[in-house]
């Protein structure tokens, strides 16, 4: 800051304008979440200003509600399973794209990346119709299947980006040094892609954790937390929702931030810079 005076190629008005713009943009995005966060500690039953006194009552109420615990259990179980399955599938798809050239590869890529572009309501309905026909609707497994469908493309995109940064000779170099294809996968491809694989794991967990629409269609009695929240909301307006919302937000953000650290922090180290 102190040396801005020396920087002759900067217009302070533009600098300040840009800073204000960034702050306003963040305020716009995070204000609703911040409000929810603040009201979750507020003693008043209805969100209003001025605030009442600070309380943890709503968190206590949530923590003692068996329905919330059941929802959380479902959400975690689904989230972790989805994360692992979607990342495995996404990695396979990304590696296929990295390693092989084949006829119709563009179509393959387009199809593989398609699910997130389909409106969730339509996807949810389609899932319900399909899963109920094969007798899989209304349980945690059906939510897992549906979430893997929407999460795998994210995992693929993340891993694919990482593999595209890999020196194309690296895998062949491993083979040339005596590694079979499996050994090269284990000792070269996976270690290289590890930050992206973990990143994809956290992101897909976060996506599954937050996803409401499809879960609402297919979960039946095994509702995940977001579906439970809607249930609460329809029954009564309660600041407990703020408490749950805060919890869900913090969890998702933790996962996303972990993914970010993995993808950007380690990513910079991936390729030796051509110094000297």
């Amino acid at each position, binding site marked *: 800051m102190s040396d801005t005076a020396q920087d002759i190629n900067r217009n302070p008005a533009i600098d300040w304008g840009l800073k204000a713009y960034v702050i306003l943009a963040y305020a716009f995005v995070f204000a609703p979440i911040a409000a929810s966060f603040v009201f979750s500690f507020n003693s008043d039953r209805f969100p209003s200003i001025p605030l009442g006194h600070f309380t943890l009552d709503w968190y206590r109420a949530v923590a003692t509600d068996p329905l919330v615990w059941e929802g959380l259990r479902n959400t975690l179980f689904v989230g972790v399973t989805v994360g692992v399955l979607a990342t495995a599938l996404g990695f396979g798809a990304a590696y296929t794209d990295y390693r092989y050239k084949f006829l119709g590869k563009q179509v393959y890529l387009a199809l593989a990346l398609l699910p997130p572009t389909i409106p969730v309501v339509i996807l949810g309905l389609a899932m319900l119709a399909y899963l109920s026909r094969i007798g899989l609707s209304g349980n945690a497994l059906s939510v897992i299947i549906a979430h893997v469908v929407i999460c795998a493309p994210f995992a693929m995109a993340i891993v694919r980006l990482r593999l595209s940064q890999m020196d194309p*000779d690296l895998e062949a170099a491993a083979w040339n040094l*005596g590694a079979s294809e499996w050994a090269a996968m284990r000792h070269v491809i996976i*270690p290289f892609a590890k930050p992206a694989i973990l990143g994809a794991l956290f992101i897909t967990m976060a996506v599954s954790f937050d996803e409401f629409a499809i879960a609402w269609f297919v979960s039946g009695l095994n509702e995940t937390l977001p579906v439970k929240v809607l249930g609460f909301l329809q029954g009564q307006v309660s600041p407990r929702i703020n408490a749950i919302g805060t919890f869900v937000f913090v969890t998702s953000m933790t996962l996303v931030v972990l993914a970010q650290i993995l993808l950007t922090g380690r990513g910079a180290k991936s390729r030796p810079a051509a110094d000297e």
Partner: protein
Amino acid sequence: MQRDTLVSFEGVEKRFGGFVAVQKMDFDIRKGEFLAIMGSSGCGKTTTLRMLAGLEAPSAGVIRLAGQPINHLPTWSRDTPMVWQSLALFPFLNVRENVEFALKMRGVGKADRRRRAEQWLERMQILEFAERDISQLSGGQRQRVALARSLVVEPEILLLDEPLSALDAALKVRMQSVLKNLQRETGITFVYVTHSQSEAFSMADRVVIMSRGKIEQIGTPQEIYRTPATRFVAEFLGSSNIFTGQVKAAAGKSVTLEGPAGTFTLAAADLATPPAVGQKVSLTVLDARTRLAATAPAGAFNKVPVRMIGEEFVGATATIYLETAQGQEIRVQKSQDDLESLPLQVGKDYVAFWPHEDGHLVAEA
């Protein structure tokens, strides 16, 4: 000194779809030699090396290693480690782990692996960097890691694909002597692909010159330099003046050809088949063997009247650029001392000449 054959290419060919990357080739690599494969980009030199490494399968022909056909062997079952142009070091492993990699893949135990890796690191003078990340090394140090990583299995043959191309000029020269010494000390056969004549000629025992998927010439650097086999080789090396013409008379080893620049006589035409009268041929004469005088000298010389267009000094030698009446460029190389006896001036007329036995005949493709 004829050495045993280690690798032989027998009618090996490589096509990518309709494109012929390597035309049917037959040649041998001798045990313990430093062989350079040289050519411009796209000439098939790297494809040839990759076929030997097992990274490309030949479309036809047989490649033998120590007498055994290896066409069917995947690269991980051959002992043909390669040093890559990109080096392809593993960025997520440190220096020592990179060098240990091939041993690990061969199931060598941890302690043994470490000991052998450190031996090579020491030999390459990078032991002090053993625990460093690849990204912390300089270009020259990375080069040494790449060499150690390939040599740690003590192979019979080492393949090198333009490994020095990313280094600056001074480091390149230093690494050339490192490579040459390493090859001499270990006795490992080196096959070195490069587009650089100075690299090939300074290190190799024999050089293979390729063009458009075809071998143009195989020989020692001296053979190739003195007697280029084809016009392509002469032009590629760029160290000879080339005159094209038709054979006017041929008697034994003596050939006379007539071209736009004049009539020239060769005392020792060494074409495999003697040229027929009327055949189109080229005569090459080394820049360094071409002489220059202010007036036509007496005696049995081939002579070309030329006009000076420029000069260029590199250290103690000068290259003088001249032009014939037809506009063909002629180069003459002289030491600084030689030049003092001949006053040079751009635009002035001179006579370029050389003895009959310094000319060399190449077939016109």
